[in-house]
């Protein structure tokens, strides 16, 4: 699923943010990425969703060499990924239902073909009664659940989450973690970046630590 060999990452001509990183992840695995703020966790995730190319080394994600992926191939590859961000990245002028259905709409599906699935998904994240509401009327936890529903609506092979519990209280963080664990049990590969070590302990998951540009197992 993910195979990184001596990968270095940097923005344009800046310094290396990741140095000589080696990392493998098989389908169906759950992994946590930890590290202090500014360690480069988000940059690492950008590599995983094809927004950055390695400066050095070899990166294979979803069986594709990241360096050789062409711009026109990105949409199809990204449909195999579900990405969740700390700041949700929801479209405030669309309803909860429309936000969740957005990836399917972008794939050209008609509303009547996905209506049932989206409603089921909103039921799963506990937001069935909020389908017509706008994101700006939701709490942080509710917004994150909408973002999770949007990330999984296309049944992706790999879920990437960048600090998904960063804006919610511990009780809500546990509920969100439960959603990711459920997805993983269903066979979805989940890679979750967080600085919340209690959350990792709770999930009893394998974690890697990023600091000073280097990655090590915990």
């Amino acid at each position: 699923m993910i195979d990184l060999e001596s990968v270095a990452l940097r923005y344009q001509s800046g310094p290396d943010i990741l140095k000589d990183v080696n990392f493998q992840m098989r389908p169906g695995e759950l992994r946590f990425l930890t590290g202090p703020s500014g360690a480069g966790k988000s940059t690492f995730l950008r590599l995983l969703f094809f927004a950055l190319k390695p400066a050095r080394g070899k990166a294979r994600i979803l069986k594709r060499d990241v360096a050789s992926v062409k711009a026109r191939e990105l949409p199809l590859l990204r449909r195999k990924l579900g990405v969740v961000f700390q700041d949700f990245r929801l479209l405030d002028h669309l309803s909860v239902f429309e936000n969740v259905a957005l990836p399917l709409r972008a794939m050209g599906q008609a509303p009547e073909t996905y209506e049932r699935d989206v409603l089921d998904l909103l039921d799963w994240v506990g937001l069935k009664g909020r389908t017509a509401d706008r994101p700006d009327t939701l709490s942080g936890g509710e917004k994150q659940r909408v973002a999770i529903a949007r990330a999984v609506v296309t049944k992706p092979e790999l879920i990437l989450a960048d600090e998904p519990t960063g804006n919610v209280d511990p009780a809500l963080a546990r509920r969100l973690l439960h959603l990711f664990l459920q997805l993983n049990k269903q066979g979805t590969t989940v890679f979750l970046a967080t600085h919340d070590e209690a959350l990792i302990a709770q999930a009893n998951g394998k974690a890697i630590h990023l600091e000073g540009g280097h990655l090590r197992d915990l």
Partner: protein
Amino acid sequence: MAQTSSKPSPIFPKGAAPLRALTVTMAVMCYLACLAIGALVLVNRAAEAWSQGIAREVTVQIREISGEDIEKSLRTALGILKTNPGVLDAKALDRQEGIKLLEPWLGKIAMDELPVPRLIRVAVDEQAPPDYPLLEKSLQSNVKGISLDTHRRWQAELARMGRALTLLASLVLALITLASIMLVVFAARSVLEANRSVVEVLELIGAEDKFISRQNDKQFLNTGLLAGFLGLLAGLVTFLALGFSGSAAGDSVAAAGRSLLFAPVDVELRLWAGLLLVPLAATLIALWTSRLTLMRMLRQHA
């Protein structure tokens, strides 16, 4: 489930501030384009009318020569003119009428003693005009001090002026088009900048460029059409106001406005075709320039 049965909302938010500003600015540009088209049609029509008026008439002038009976010369000239093929009518102006024609240049002065030339107004058949060199030769061999003015020089001058005004109006139209394109390019950038987060989300969820472009097209299509028709409406209201303004705006202005509104069918057709092109052009400009700008932005993201 109300949100699922109704039409999906536009993916780009409606009524973004830069889009509203673009609508207003483009409507103003379209209004100016309508005025320029009106002016173009008006100038063409006026130049045609002047040229036709001049082509329908020629003037024969007889200078007073001592020892010559000018009344007899007039009769001889009229005789020659009326029998000449291509001449529809010939009418001699009396001395007072001739003096009146000089008043704009000389003012009201006593001209009884001055040798004022006598004039004959000759109406000619535009389709089959007389052979002017032959007619002039015939007149000069029978009447002393006679000359024929075919107004060719004036006709050429008017045609030149008409062409210059047409060129000027066309230039104004071209500048308006160019300015509109530049405006849309800048506005499209502002709108897309305002919607950058939406574009980023769309790219992240695997939307293809053509899907993003279609969503963008919808908003710029609506903007172009709305601005075009607002400008056209304002232009028509202006023509109507000019046409019915009467003494308030001065007779010549009102006449110009009326001549646009109540022109012959071919002129009306030209005018309407030009005016209806304005919203069409505005829509196409908005659509294509915004699409190119978006595509450039998406290429930079990739």
